Every structure is written in C-alpha cells, then in structure tokens.
C-alpha cells in the first residue's frame, strides 16, 4: 500500500471549504440550539403541566433516537410543509434541534446545582419565577455548566459529519468527494479525521482557559488562606 501525500496539497482548498462549512454549521446550530435548550430547561420547571410534558417529551424523543434518522426526517418532512430549504439549512436546523435537547439537560443540571436558597431568597424579595431565574440563578449556573457545554459543542462538531448523508458540503462530504475522484480513501479520511481532531482539541483548549478564568472570578476571595487570615474581616 502506498500513501499519496500529494492529496493533502492538491485538494487542500476542497478540504478547507468543507472545514469552514462545518464550522459555520456548528456555530449556527449553537446559536439556534442553546437558547432553545434554555427554553426547554425552564419549561421543565414550569407550573403549567402541559409545558412540562411537552418539554420532557421533546428531550426524550431527541435523546433516544439516532441523529441520522432525525436528519432524514427533517429532510423529507420540511418540504411537505412548504419549507423548501437548501440541505445546509435543513442540516443546521436538525443539528440545532438535536443539540437543544442535550443543552437543556446540561442547563437543568446547572440550575439544580445552584443552591435552593438562592432561588428562595430571590422569590422572597418579590421576584417572579422568571425574574429570579434571570437575575439570580442562571448567572450562577454559567461557570458550573461551562465544561458540559463544551463537551456538547464537541459532540455537535462530530455529529455534523452525518450531514454528509444529505449532501451538505461540509468536511466529511469533501473527503467523500475527494476519494471519489482519487480512489484514495485512506488519505482523504485520515486528512479529515486529523482536521476534526485538531478542531476539537483547539476548542477544548480554548474552553479550558475560559473555564479557568470564569471560575477564578467567581471564586475571588472564597475561602483561601489569605482571606481568612485577614484581620479586617473579623468584625461581625
């Protein structure tokens, strides 16, 4: 077996176009999916039983079925409702819908992790449920959910590869096209595997730095030796 490294150079533009498409799709899915995930998480706590049931059902449905079949259903169903979107948009919507179910669970976990007393003290001042969430609880969930949110984003990057099955021109599609032309599947798929790997590692490294900065800010002065030994903090 011989490895033809020239593929990497001669088809580089194709690969990078696909790479760029992958990035755009994932960003689009996050912009659509995260806010909706928040909506789902809040609906799960709603005092209206119907909202709770709808939210839980949505989450269970999207988490208990393969993404590929969700993609195909979106692909075939949307035209019937008059929505003739190009495959890229269908794919982004499908990825967003899928992601929102997982984002919702992450956010729900974060809300539960914030001490109950925070919500209570906010409600006790006269804030409504939503006001208490918005001004007191949700801001505190941010540093808590950051790692899980990062994991979810990495997962979306990987799931985006499945969009190649509905001919979206992202990175995996680029490899399929290249190997179709060159009959060199190993080089093509290894190339994109490395690119996905690099993308995910980069995101992970950036987010780890962000996490450290965020947790430093929210931990300012919290129970470290310096603060405790400070005599100025002695009075009642």
């Amino acid at each position: 077996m011989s490895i033809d490294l020239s593929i990497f150079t001669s088809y580089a533009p194709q690969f990078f176009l696909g790479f760029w498409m992958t990035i755009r799709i994932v960003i689009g899915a996050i912009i659509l999916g995260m806010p909706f995930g928040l909506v789902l998480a809040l609906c799960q706590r709603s005092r209206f039983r119907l909202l709770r049931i709808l939210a839980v059902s949505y989450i269970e449905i999207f988490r208990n079925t393969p993404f590929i079949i969700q993609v195909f259903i979106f692909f075939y169903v949307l035209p019937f409702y008059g929505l003739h979107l190009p495959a890229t948009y269908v794919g982004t919507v499908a990825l967003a819908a899928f992601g929102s179910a997982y984002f919702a669970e992450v956010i729900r976990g974060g809300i539960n992790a914030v001490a109950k007393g925070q919500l209570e003290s906010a409600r006790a001042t006269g804030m409504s449920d939503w006001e208490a969430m918005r001004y007191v609880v949700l801001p505190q969930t941010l540093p808590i959910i950051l790692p899980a949110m990062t994991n979810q984003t990495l997962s979306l990057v990987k799931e985006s590869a499945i969009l190649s099955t509905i001919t979206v021109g992202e990175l995996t599609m680029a490899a399929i096209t290249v190997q179709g032309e060159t009959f060199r599947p190993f080089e093509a798929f290894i190339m994109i595997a490395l690119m996905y790997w690099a993308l995910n590692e980069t995101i992970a490294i950036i987010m780890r730095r962000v996490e450290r900065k965020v947790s430093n800010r929210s931990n300012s002065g919290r129970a470290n030796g310096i603060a405790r030994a400070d005599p100025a903090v002695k009075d009642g």
Partner: protein
Amino acid sequence: MAPNTETKNNFLEMTRIRKSFAGLTALQDVSLSVPKGEVVCIIGPSGCGKSTLLRTANWLTPADAGEVRLNGEIVGAMPDPRSKSMQARSLNALRARIGMVFQQFNVWPHLSVLENVVCPQMVVAKRGRDIAEKKALAALAIVGLDEKKTDWPDNLSGGQKQRLAIARVLAMDPVLMLLDEPTSALDPELVSGVLTVLKQLAEKGMTMIIVTHELGFARSVANRVVFMEEGQIIEEGSPDVILRTPSTKRLEVFLEKLNLTALKPKTNGASHRVMKSD
C-alpha cells in the same frame, strides 16, 4: 383550652395553618396574629415547626390549609378563590413589602455588595438606578457595610453577609420582616453585630417575626415570645413572664435544656396565655 379571639384587624393574620411534609405533620392548625410594630420571637426545639410557620407567612412554603393576610390582603390561602395569575401577581407584590432573612444568608455571590441591594429594587420595585443606589447606600449604612459596597459577598464574614441580607431587605422599605434563625449559622463572636442591627430596627418600630435560639435577645427585644412544639403553639406571652415563669411543663423542660433556671411554674399575669396545658 383558651380560645383564640383576637381581633381580626391585626397587621399580620395567620389563621389555622396546616402543613404536612411526606405524611409528617409540621403544623397543626396554628394561628398567629401580629399587630403592627410588634416584635415576636418564636422559640422551640428543632422540628417543632417554627421555621415552617415563618415560611408560611410569606407563602414561601405554601400551607395545605389556612390563610395568611397582611393588612387584610391575602398573602396566601388554601383553598384560594382567586385565579392563578391573580394569586401570583398579588403574592409577588406583597412579598416586595415583606422582607425575609435566612439562616444561610443567601446573599447572591455573583453580584457585588452594592448590586445585591440594588437588584431587587430595580427588578421588583421598578426603581431607577439613581434612586436604587441611593437607598442601597442608606441601607448599607444602617447595617454598617457602606465601606464594603464594591466588595464581593465571598469576601465577607458570615456576620457581614447576614447584615448584607438585612440591608437588601431594608432597601425595599418592608412593612414586615421575617427572620429565620438569623444568627444560628454565625460564629459566636459575630452574633452580636447582627443582633445590634436587629435591635435598632425593632426600636424604630419595625414589625418583626424572628425564629431564634437567642433567648437573651428575645428577652431584650421581643414584645412577645411564642413557644412551639410538635407543630403547635404551646405557650405565648411577654418574654419576662414566659421565660422566667413558664406555665407549661414542656416549656420548662425546653428552657432547662437551654440552661435557664425557671422559677416555680404558675399561671398568672394578664399578658400571658396558655394554649395547651399539660
């Protein structure tokens, strides 16, 4: 058993409150009336329902039966004749005028000291930032924290956090304050700082209900002490009388456990009423 026939025009009226948790009865038909300006201290062994009763006063813990009225308006009632949205709106509006202080302080760590006090004013009372900050600084001055206004709650001692919680309540101009064991989570040397602030508020005429273990504080500040056990009010009356000469064996035992010597138990005094006799 002496009947409860106080006038129904009291500032805070809690009528026949019943509450159970997972089959266990926390409150059995408890009624409490608090006139304006009175300071009531609720004492009792742990598990007696005193915190539950306090939390029912602002419906943070909704009762299974009974009603709570503030100045005639329903805070919460079960059953409640009003629509759900009416209930929610009215409750939030009333809670804005009731201030609650928690044992675990519950200050908001993601906001600075000043912002903690400004936030509810702007969100709930819909005040503009200028007014909110002015009132916040005034409230922080009352509790002695104005120097710390740009600091973060995590840098404060327990006592300071509790005083911050009190300032947050004060800035909302409450007509009633509910305090759930405000000093129980504090190191002993920090307790007096908080109690001093509370005493000043009481002297200025604030209506307060305080669940506490600090009997010395109760004696010096309270107009009335209420003793609860097992979900019922056993005895209530003026602190001097009730703490020095308990009428019931149960209160006597409780006080003894807290190392207070009680004189011979006897029924006397007009300002003293026994709810349940042993």
